[in-house]
């Protein structure tokens, strides 16, 4: 397993936002996290990527315990993410955003830049960034400011930026929020293609059709606890899941 989470707990004051969650993700497959608002999905992703430090439990990545590592160290080890509200470097160009995403794979060129006529060769990185911008259909937009893009384009740019570091685990926090049907369909293709290329993907998403269509496995969170996990079919049939979503008790019980 690429990512192995054991008994992960995160508290805010007296509230357990994430409680005793076990979870694992493997390369080449999509794991979706679903659950009502406030179920702890984003908190869990923050604990994986390092924005939050867990209060209990272990986050293992490639067999290494990364529970206490700061976010940039996790990024260096191959964990990339997007944010629920999109967090681009808005005042910088589209291309710069992707180049910054590649920071942990880029060698420092400070000295080469300072030496007069020194050779600072960023061509390889720019080529790679160009490929990624092509992948997310932002070919002709390299020199625009990230903040000038439409919402859907910003979401795609954020994915390109995350991929620039050549991660092995990609965490997507509600990537389809605010997208139209066509964009959402395109996103589904992209996620499948990335998983096909060997990435492990953890996806938080409310769009049920997208989740059912794209995931190998689905984990359901409610009040910080994992209440179900399985294939899309298994999860759909789970009475506990229906209860959490609909807020009514099953009549048969």
């Amino acid at each position, binding site marked *: 397993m690429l990512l192995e989470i054991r008994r992960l707990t995160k508290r805010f004051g007296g509230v357990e936002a994430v409680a005793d969650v076990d979870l694992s993700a493997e390369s080449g497959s999509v794991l979706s996290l679903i659950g009502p608002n406030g179920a702890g999905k984003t908190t869990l992703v923050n604990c994986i990527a390092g924005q939050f430090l867990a209060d209990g439990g272990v986050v293992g990545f490639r067999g290494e315990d990364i529970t206490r590592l700061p976010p940039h160290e996790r*990024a260096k080890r191959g964990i990339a993410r997007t944010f629920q509200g999109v967090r*681009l*470097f808005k005042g910088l160009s589209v291309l*710069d955003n992707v*180049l*910054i995403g590649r920071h942990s794979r880029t*060698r420092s060129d400070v000295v080469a830049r300072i030496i007069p006529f020194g050779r600072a060769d960023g061509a390889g990185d720019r080529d790679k960034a160009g490929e990624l911008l092509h992948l997310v259909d932002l070919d002709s937009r390299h020199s625009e*400011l990230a903040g000038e893009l439409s919402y859907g384009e910003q979401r795609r740019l954020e994915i390109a930026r995350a991929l620039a570091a050549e991660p092995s685990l990609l965490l997507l926090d509600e990537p389809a929020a605010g997208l139209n049907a066509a964009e959402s369909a395109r996103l589904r293709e992209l996620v499948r293609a990335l998983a096909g290329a060997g990435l492990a993907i953890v996806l938080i998403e409310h769009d049920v059709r997208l989740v059912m269509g794209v995931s190998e496995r689905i984990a359901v969170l409610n009040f910080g606890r994992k209440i179900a996990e399985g294939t899309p079919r298994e999860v759909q049939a789970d009475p506990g899941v229906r209860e959490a979503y609909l807020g009514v008790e099953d009549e048969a019980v």
Partner: protein
Amino acid sequence: MEAVGEFLRAYSTLFGGIGISCLLALSIWVTLYAGQLTLGNAAFMGVAAYTAALLTLKAQWPFPVALLAGAAAATALSLPLGLIVFRLRGVYLAIATLAFGEMVRIVILALPITGRGQGLNGIPPKTSVAAVAYVLARVRVSTLGRAWAAIREDELAAAANGIAVRRYTLAAFVIGAAVASWAGGLSAHQNFSIDPGQFGFSTAVQILVMAVVGGIPNVLGPLLGAALLTALPELLRFLREYRDIFQGAILILVIAYLPRGLITLFDLARTRRLMRIGQADVA
């Protein structure tokens, strides 16, 4: 030719002053470009000035060596200070560095040796300005400068993209301190005398104003701001009495009408684009 030489001699102090102002404005540019507001550069300047002056006066060190030693001492001081204060953000960071400046001033006041630096005709500051400006301009377009820009735009996202935020902001702080220290060492030998008041609160703010009026988007901004705010009150004698008012007026006008600084007068299209997406207050 003779007239030019005459002019240069007559205004050599002014040119020296502009050179030092330029260095100081560049010193705070580094941290501002990385999105960090620190106000400790006047203090680093003071530590370097006193060290260099004392080494020349009491130990008879030659000027270049004393200058280097002073700058090195002040820069070395910036590292432990940076490690402590870069736990802080925004206004708190500014106040902590300002407090450090006051401490330096008081320590200088309390020490038995109050330096009186003797004048020396050493390296003209203009040369240093060109070198420092060149290096910083190149750093700006390097991976380091790109990381600073990312931190300025969004620290959390920068960290998630593999940038060690603390390390990079600390680097900006130390580099800025080094430039300020260099300026301090030069100023001690140029002004013939130094006193703690030169490195206090008003200088700390003055350095910030020069950089902000000129503009942060590139290194030409601080140079322009420093040259303008240093030269104008000297050249227009009648303004000398009203230096502070004049400066305040320029600051208000620039912030209101050219939020990215005077240097962006030639780059208004970009300012408009940045304003539309609400990012014009940064760079």
